[in-house]
């Protein structure tokens, strides 16, 4: 608990991809910024179950904010990924049509997307598809090909953004839940943000609290926002099936979603899903038999060879839905309070464009944004053995012996990578999994869990019985043997 009250120009609430994108953007300027996250690690809310697709900007309504920010974000993400050493793969997407009616919808989609500035679109026919996407259902007659679609690791992007923001002076506070917002009668500092770890005094507040953004907004007196969690169940396939598809495959979109897709994670695991279901509870991460059946059958319509035995894991995520479009605005009734709310798909893609927009909002509302003379723009890549050639692996092992000490056999992760992840902030077993893939493969940690726990306990000086999957309450083991 902090006793003295520290002051900030900007306090960002929420440590997902939106909060950290804004934090990194603001770290270019001579202002004091703090980011508050209630969980033990960043990206543990909405962002952790993001599918990792960098959308080209198709399937958005022309004139919508999300449509515009998505197209901009697609371009910006490439630059940011390069600067931060995060792998971005441009793989392209196909929106697939199975009959004449769907075929004509493709032309409408293409036209809509072109008016929004999506580049490189073309309609490809059955022959092209058979040659370039051999596992696609042979009954497909045409597809809209968007070459600028890509994939990225959502959590690794968040961790890289946060690390870079911190390097450039931003404070990040985890396990810091916002409990209230107090208005001050001060011309400069208008708010006291009351948290579980003390008070943060701020000129501006940016609400990027994901599913709980309505709760935070109402603390500031903005009560007309309501977030509806929209659940999606996703299923991940074994990396052995890495070459299942070359492109990201989409059916034609419906009103509420882009449909059930066949994509892959940036680590090479094919992924099928998501379902779409509005739920009440913001903690409702239940997966279901119905979701499973639905996703497998819809994915098989695109790629008939998908086998349910290849599914190695599944999870549910919640999209923070607030109306049809994103809300990114300064609340003129509450000067200094900026809402970034309802950032569902394509939020990951749009994140850097949203960050740019927030910067302008702050500037227009009186925050003096002078560029720092020394902004640390670049940051080295995090090393992952699984993405390296044998030749490179040899060099790495020579440089640091711990690269040759493999602890996760399914995904080939070394002791060195796990130690690096801990150095970069991993505090939980999920945090290590998200950063390194260890425990994320086909055996699900059956072989490596105990070794990772020993390393985590040793490196963080935490007793092994207190280690958690994802924060307090999720301790892995109960006690040492023989404690009565």
């Amino acid at each position, binding site marked *: 608990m902090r006793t003295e009250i520290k002051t900030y120009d900007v306090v960002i609430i929420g440590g997902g991809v939106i909060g950290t994108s804004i934090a990194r953007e603001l770290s270019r300027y001579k202002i004091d910024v703090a980011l508050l996250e209630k969980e033990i690690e960043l990206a543990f809310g909405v962002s952790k179950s993001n599918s990792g697709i960098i959308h080209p900007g198709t399937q958005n309504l022309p004139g919508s904010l999300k449509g515009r920010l998505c197209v901009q974000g697609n371009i910006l993400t490439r630059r940011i990924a390069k600067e931060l050493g995060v792998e971005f793969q441009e793989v392209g997407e196909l929106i697939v049509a199975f009959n004449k009616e769907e075929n004509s919808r493709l032309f409408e989609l293409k036209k809509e997307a072109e008016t929004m500035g999506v580049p490189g679109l073309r309609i490809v026919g059955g022959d092209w598809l058979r040659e370039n996407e051999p596992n696609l259902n042979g009954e497909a007659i045409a597809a809209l090909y968007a070459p600028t679609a890509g994939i990225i690791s959502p959590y690794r992007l968040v961790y890289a953004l946060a690390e870079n923001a911190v390097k450039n002076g931003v404070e990040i506070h985890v396990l810091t839940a916002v409990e209230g917002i107090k208005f001050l009668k001060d011309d400069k500092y208008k708010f006291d943000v009351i948290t579980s770890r003390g008070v943060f005094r701020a000129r501006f507040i940016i609400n990027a609290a994901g599913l709980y953004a309505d709760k935070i907004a109402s603390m500031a007196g903005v009560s007309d926002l309501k977030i509806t969690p929209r659940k999606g169940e996703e299923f991940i396939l074994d990396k052995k099936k890495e070459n299942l598809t070359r492109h990201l495959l989409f059916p034609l979109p419906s009103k509420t979603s882009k449909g059930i897709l066949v994509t892959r994670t940036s680590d090479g695991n094919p992924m099928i899903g998501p379902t779409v279901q509005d739920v009440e509870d913001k903690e409702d991460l*239940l*997966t279901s*038999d119905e979701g499973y059946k639905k996703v497998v059958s819809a994915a098989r319509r695109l790629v008939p060879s998908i086998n349910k035995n290849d*599914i190695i894991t599944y999870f549910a995520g919640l999209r923070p839905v607030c109306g049809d479009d994103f809300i990114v605005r300064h609340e003129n009734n509450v000067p200094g309070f900026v809402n970034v709310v309802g950032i569902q798909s394509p939020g990951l893609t749009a994140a850097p464009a949203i960050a740019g927009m927030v910067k302008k909002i702050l500037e227009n509302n009186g925050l003096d944004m002078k560029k720092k003379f020394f902004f640390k723009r670049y940051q080295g890549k995090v090393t992952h053995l699984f993405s390296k050639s044998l030749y490179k692996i040899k060099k790495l092992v020579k440089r640091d012996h711990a690269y040759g000490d493999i602890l996760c056999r399914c995904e080939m992760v070394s002791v060195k990578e796990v130690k690096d992840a801990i150095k970069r902030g991993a505090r939980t077993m999920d945090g290590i999994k998200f950063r390194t893939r260890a425990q994320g493969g086909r055996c699900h940690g059956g072989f490596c869990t105990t070794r990772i726990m020993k390393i985590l306990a040793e490196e963080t000086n935490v007793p092994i019985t207190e280690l958690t999957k994802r924060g307090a309450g999720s301790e*892995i*083991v*109960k006690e040492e043997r023989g404690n009565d």
Partner: protein
Amino acid sequence: MINRELVVVGGGPAGMAAAISAYENGVRDILLLERDQYLGGILNQCIHTGFGLDYFDEVLTGPEYADRFIKKIRNIPEIEVSLRSFVVDLTEDKVLTYLKPGSVETIKAGALIMATGCRERTREMIHIPGTRPAGVFSAGLAQKFINIEGLLPGKKIVIVGSGDIGLIMARRFLLEGAEVEGIVEIKSESRGLIRNMVQCVEDFNIPVYFNHKISGIYGKDRVEKVDIVRVDKEFNKVAGTETRLDCDTVLISVGLIPENELIEMAGVEIDKKTNSPVSKEVNRTSIPGIFVCGNSFKVYDLVDTVSNESIKAGCMIAEYLGYKITCNEE
């Protein structure tokens, strides 16, 4: 690139027996690679008895059983043991690359025995819906926690599946002072050995829910409860038969799968359903000179059988390498 006459991948009971047998049949240049820090494989965590009845005519614990082979290996200088050695690449020409702390080695093997064992089927493979809290473990991981690490992973346990490891762990948890709420088995009888059903379950009055499956795991951060439901002969849920069991831990014991990702990489034909190599004869694969033995060939009930079949593999490989073998002349 270094040439070796025979490379054995895996230092559990299968790999050790095959290496010894190959030596006894004349092979003199043997490299045994083990990814862990010691030989013996999973036997090291199996501290219960019941091993060796068939092979040694004695009742041994897992570590004791392993120790007999380890001692033998240590007395054969022609078998070079390399620990913490993890094979990352294998080609059909039997060129393999492995990492160990500080080095990466590439070797051309005259012949190969893959004895890479098996892994446990997971919660994910049988698709149990619900949340994803801490406290869901494979039975073997729970065994490792208690027997090797000295940690108790839970205090109120539900076991899914009546495989041998699950049955043994039911008893183990009881002896550690935990409660075992029940074993949930989708079939009408146990899939474990009778002696394990009797000694680990019936003797301790642990409830077994036959013809039941688990329909959900619940809990926000840690497992809090599970739902189980009766199933009909086609394993479909029978409506209205749901029961809720409070627990903090779910153990998954629903079978084992051969680990054959390396030979699959080399192009060996693998049965998609069983993950075993496609083969008409025990230990052989579709690539001449690449042999597979023990639980990576197929999952055996008893380690004694693994030893016997792996000794056979050592003979077969010696014969492949051109030695006059003695093991068929019993």
